[in-house]
């Protein structure tokens, strides 16, 4: 204030002669620096999380494979999972994970794409405003509720259709089908985003050439949005592989190397949930085995996620 007054108010000769020196250096602001450091730390937490997952899972899995009777090769190729007698072959668990995931994808992918197609190409804005929230609710239902639905609705339904002597009370088909319903909104919303991103001009050009709505949708819009749809497919697979509660409730407990979807068989996630649900003492093969399986699960899903991202970035059709 004093300075301003001296400059603007009293323009005396002395003031002109002796100009006040200003410090034009950037002011150091310790609070700003502290805040920035804290915010950087917040950002780094996510990296720490990933590192934590890799290190902790890796460490315990290392202990697991450090057991002289277990080798990585016998773990990955063994067809028997019986910790009691020291047989740790992950194939039965992997196999049932694959079967439930394949069933889920077979349900969710066509339904999801068709729903996305309807929402983006056919539905009126009013219809969209009704259908989108319904899909969001379907996506927001907790997985344990889907598990309940599988056990009390889907399983009796399957047993009614195929005969209760053919279908176990706990079976992979029921879990897989309900998992498909669970993934459906994910795939449909991602595919719809991809379809909506295709510019209008492409559609109009196709109509102008006399194409029907279906031909435009299938031969013009769908190929243009393919990268997004493939990304949705991969994310769907990753979600199905990592899904726990539905399989823990409806697919049965107990590893079982079978290709019949109507049989009970435990998946990787189901095994982790069952083993850690009981009283688990540290540093036992059981305890370490869930880390080995968890690491496998993490690597598979993390890899799928990266793949999905890479595909949607690499093969995206860029317009304009």
């Amino acid at each position, binding site marked *: 204030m004093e300075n301003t007054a001296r400059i603007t108010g009293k323009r005396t000769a002395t003031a002109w002669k002796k100009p006040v020196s200003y410090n034009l250096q950037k002011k150091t602001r310790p609070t700003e620096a502290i805040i920035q450091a804290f915010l950087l730390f917040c*950002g780094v937490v996510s990296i720490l999380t990933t590192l934590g997952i890799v290190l902790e899972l890796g460490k315990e899995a290392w202990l697991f494979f450090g057991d002289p009777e277990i080798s990585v090769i016998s773990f990955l190729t063994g067809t028997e999972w019986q910790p009691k007698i020291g047989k740790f072959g992950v194939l039965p668990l992997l196999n049932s994970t694959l079967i439930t995931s394949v069933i889920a994808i077979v349900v969710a992918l066509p339904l999801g794409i068709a729903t996305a197609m309807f929402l983006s190409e056919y539905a009126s804005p009013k219809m969209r405003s009704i259908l989108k929230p319904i899909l969001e609710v379907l996506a927001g239902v907790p997985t344990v509720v889907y598990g309940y639905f599988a056990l009390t609705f889907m399983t009796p339904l399957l047993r009614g259709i195929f005969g209760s002597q053919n279908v176990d009370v706990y079976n992979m088909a029921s879990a897989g089908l309900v998992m498909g319903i669970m993934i459906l909104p994910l795939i449909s919303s991602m595919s719809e985003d991809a379809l909506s991103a295709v510019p209008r001009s492409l559609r109009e050009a196709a109509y102008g050439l006399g194409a029907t*709505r*279906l031909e435009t949708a299938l031969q013009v819009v769908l190929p243009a949005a393919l990268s997004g749809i493939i990304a949705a497919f991969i994310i769907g697979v990753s979600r199905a592989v990592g899904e726990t*509660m539905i399989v823990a*409730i409806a697919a049965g407990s107990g590893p079982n190397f079978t290709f019949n979807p109507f049989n009970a068989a435990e998946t990787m996630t189901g095994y982790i949930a069952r083993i850690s649900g009981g009283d688990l003492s*540290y540093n036992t093969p059981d305890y370490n085995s*869930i880390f080995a399986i968890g690491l496998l699960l*993490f690597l598979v899903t993390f890899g799928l*996620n990266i793949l999905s991202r890479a595909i949607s970035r690499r093969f995206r059709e860029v317009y304009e």
Partner: protein
Amino acid sequence: MNQMEPKTFGSNQEMQDAEKNFLHRRHQRARLAQSVFQLTTLLAVIFLAALLVTVVNKSMGYVVVENKVDPSTLSDRPLSELNNTELAQILRENLRKNRVRTLERAGFLEDQSQSTLVQLVETEIIQPEVVESYNLFPSLIKRSKIKADAASTYPNAKVEFRYWLNGTFLTNSMASQPELAGVRSALLGSLQLILITILTAFPIGVGAAIYLEEYASHKSRINRLIQTNIDNLAGVPSIVYGILGLALFVRALQPFTSGALFGVDGQNGRTILSAGLTMALLILPILIINAQEAIRSVPDSLRQASYGLGATRWQTIWHHVLPGAMPGILTGTILAISRAIGETAPLIVVGASTFITSDPTGPFSSFTALPIQIYNWTTRPQPAFQHIAAAAILVLLIALLSLNAAAILLRNRFAKRV
């Protein structure tokens, strides 16, 4: 169409017919596909309806209740009309001395409230047991048959219509009999868990979002790494977070999470605190991504104006960017929380107990949560547990729906203001 076509000669007639047929087929196919798309979309609606109907169907219906002791032999008036002395008298007469002594450990029976005594008489002496239960639809359609069956099979039993989701279900804690079990401790456990999750995840998540949007240059390698990493973490299965929580919070940080560091007599690290922190890690990526979007939507002109007036970076963020982004951030947070409330798998791994009859006492107590209770009841073979699982699911869904409604309201209010 026909009038537009030019005049044709006989030799071309066939070709034109073929063309018309071709066009007709194309249109037919288009119409067919449209109805197929419509039907599949309808299927999603049907799935949701089937899910809700299944839950509601299981959550109420006729039950056949058999009492171990007929209440009319205890007193000629209904229990609720009796006073404390009479109720205590009944308890003393019908229970073994040891049991009465255990009950009186906290104080004389007469000194307890009338409703507690009525409850005691019911659980200790009358011991009602549901011997048969029906779903809602059979109860509505075959009412007379159910009553006739019950009368012939269980002559002493009473048939009543029961809403499994009722007042006592909300206020009772877990019990081994499904008729008496409730979700009180599970609800409280879920609440405390979510509180810890919010308190940790919200500041860190918003902080990370601010850093990535306002401070980080998008070119630097570490910032790109953080961004990619967050996007990928959002897709990691929840059970993997559970395993991380088990290794990190339950085991490695046990002195902290069991409360031993703070002088609390904690037995192990399987506490609400561990579960809350695990859940915080789980929802962080979702929270960050949502918060980033909200911050990005604040127009740049606001920032420029603030800088132009000489504000520092943090002053700009705190006074101008954050208030503008807050509704969006809150909406994203609510959605992340509604994810956390329904998550079950990480809680199983971190070690939620399924049989907790007392309320959780704080961050260092062992706990149960609503989804854990649902899982536990679902996997039990007795049919009555399926009914209370359905009731608990209704509680969970109602909580989730109200959270989502809050998020939508917030979003709409925000949309109006801008």
